């Protein structure tokens, strides 16, 4: 299973954090510090896989954002790279030419998309189109409910 997913900028600013196991706030902060320093210290052409404690860390840089995914030791690293790529594609489809700013200003949407793609540290839907459709429907539901709710009562 996946243990956590972190998105951070080249300056080490956290843009998204998803934890799939219960961890205390202090532990989380420590892990974030460790991950950012480890990943940002990597040479540009090195391999995308790292070992950290008993986990495998797979990271990939997309423009100004680093995607850092931690998985159990028996997971397939190459597939983890594909998972990261799939998430970027989903974000791209949703935001249209997604950049870091989109994720900063619409972080809750980034989480909603992630929650349609992964659950409990596993992939829940392998089709891009299905995930996109679900996000759109949820957004639609939110808007119509808002409209409905904002109508004056009775």
């Amino acid at each position, binding site marked *: 299973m996946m243990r956590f997913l972190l998105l951070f900028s080249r300056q080490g600013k956290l843009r998204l954090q998803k934890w799939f196991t219960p961890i205390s706030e202090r532990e989380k902060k420590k892990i974030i510090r460790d991950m950012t320093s480890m990943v940002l210290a990597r040479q540009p052409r090195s391999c995308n*896989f790292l070992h950290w404690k008993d986990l495998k860390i797979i990271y990939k840089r997309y423009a100004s954002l680093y995607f850092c995914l931690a998985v159990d030791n028996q997971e*397939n690293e190459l597939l983890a790279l594909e998972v990261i790529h799939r998430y970027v594609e989903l974000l791209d489809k949703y935001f249209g030419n997604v950049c870091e700013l989109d994720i900063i200003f619409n972080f809750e949407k980034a989480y909603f998309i992630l929650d349609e793609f992964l659950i409990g540290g596993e992939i829940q839907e392998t089709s891009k189109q299905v995930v996109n459709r679900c996000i759109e429907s949820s957004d639609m539901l939110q808007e119509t409910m808002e409209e409905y709710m904002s109508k004056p009562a009775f």
Partner: protein
Amino acid sequence: MSPSIPLQEMIRAIRSARTQCEERGVIQRECAAIRAQFRQVDNGGARSHNLAKLLYVHMLGYPAHFGQMECVRMIASPRYSEKRVGYLGAMMLLDEKQDASLLITNSIKNDLAHSNQYVQSLALCTLACMGSAEMCRDLAPEIDRLLRASNSYIKKKAALCAVHIVRKVHDLGELFAPAARSLLAEKNHGVLHGAVVLITQLCERNPEALERFRKTVPDLVQIMKGLVISGYSPEHDVAGISDPFLQVRILRLLRILGRHNETASDAMNDLLAQVATNTDSTKTVGNAVLYETVLTVLDIKSESGLRVLAVNILGRFLLNNDRNIRYIAMTSLQRIVGTDHNAVQRHRGTIVDCLKDQDASVNRALELSLALVSASNIRTMMKELAQAASGIFHAAERYAPSQRWHIDTILHVLTTAGGDVRDETVPNLIQLITNTSELHCYTVHKLYRALLTDISQPSLVQVACWCIGEYGDLLLKGECQETEPSQVTEDDALDALETVLQSHMSSPATRGFALTATMKLSTRITENVDRIRSIVSIYGSCMDVELQQRAVEYNALFRKYDHMRYLTSVLYVIGSNEEAVVSISVRCSLQVCDLLDLLGGSEEPLQPSTALGLPNSTSTAGGDLLDLLGGLELTPLAPGLTHAHTHTHTHTHTHTHTHTHTHTHTHTHTHTHTLVETEREPEVKNLTKTKLQTETSSLRIK
């Protein structure tokens, strides 16, 4: 109280803050407003915005625990927008350790039965993310119900929720087993994927479940075949592979089911061969599937032809341009080099070639190469390894799995290819040895033996001399856990050092090491001090200025300040500056001695103490000062010494070239600063037109 601003405006305000202080100010104001808003009963649609703002602030690292109750309230709200943010907040702020998490159990239960699937999905997602064991036990029957009778959108989420429940409460696995079985008949890939993950989880936890689920092997093979030979499916295609995520999970499950079981392994043989040969390996995604296939083949009871095919795939991976693929290949080959030795041997050439690569994979390549050395290929292997010497050092330094491995590796390469290594190896190796205190005995024995066999490799000789000088007592003690016992007498050790001193192959630098080592031994041995004195005095008239100066200073120590000789034992200095720093420290110690004379210190010679020649706390008048002076490592020596001492440690990491006497002192001092100070990259603003990717650069490449 200022009115609260919309989420995006707040984010903008925070980002435009120029200092940490300003940012904190903005956030404090906002948090105060948010708290006030939370206390109000109802304020229209702004509630979800407030919580979202709080979540943003939380992500920046500020405390947000006062939002926990608000999450609970929002989750219970009938509005979808509020539920959405409420559940998000629950996943971010609540975990099973918080008391508030129990309060949402009821809301989740209600939402699981909601008429709207998106509301159900929120509840399922949250439960799978942060559900505690009690919550899981409470809600397991609900999940089971959803597994059986709902649409595929819910089923796939319920399956993964069940996975989480089984992880938390192992016994509940029994509850989900029947539903899991029937889910394999679904057509929807999301549901299938969830089912496979659930079955994998059940099998991993429970051997009985594993037995029962073996019957599903034919079904799994069927599904897999469908994926592999099916035509293009737009819904699931990734670079020509149909649903690689599902394929990999099925392969993993097959691995678990086929392990230690002939029948199951036979049933999947053909399929695995088919996947191995038909999968397109030009893109990462294809290689991911191939990789999983290889792992499965090597783990089950596959026939030999299939195993050879698998190893050949790994061999092909080694030639791949992609570093990641090479790394994967190396780790996999390493796992099987014990069992499939001959198959791996065939790829030896490629493996050794990988040694030239300066990356983490080199570490693996090295271990693998060493594992492949046998009587027949040792000559060629050593030649090939020697050529890759610097790559090895670099990688060994960065990625060594254990210190003993690191030391062994470096010694190994030094003995075979010492001439090819770079200059900084010696100080780095000395530093490494110093830091590995538990291996001092082992290291000094090994180095001594290496010195006896061959004194032609300068790096090796220098390190060996230094070691003998520093840890001579451990060498002379004889017993060492990690190597065979050998009796080394003081004469033997001195013979070795003298050979180095006298050999025409030794460079002046090497002689310097040997002379210092000889001097250091004078504090660690008991019988042959005179012999050392004579060696040292001979070099007092040596042609080499450096050596002469050193010898003269050492002689002075013998003559005038015999009891201060023990200071040489704390000349715990390393690196290419050793010669320089030794001179400084000796000079300093001589000055201190003069100072002590002035103080009227007693002339009693100190008793030789144990092991590392530390002065005992005998009470001579100079004793207290000596105590201060005679610490190893951490106790400060005379001020002049301290600087050189502590800073040299950091110094060696960055510099390779030697310094003259005068430069050493100041040079070492300045460089600690640069090491301590971290580099700060400028905050990249939106409008910067630098070559660096900015926040507005699209994430999609090409």
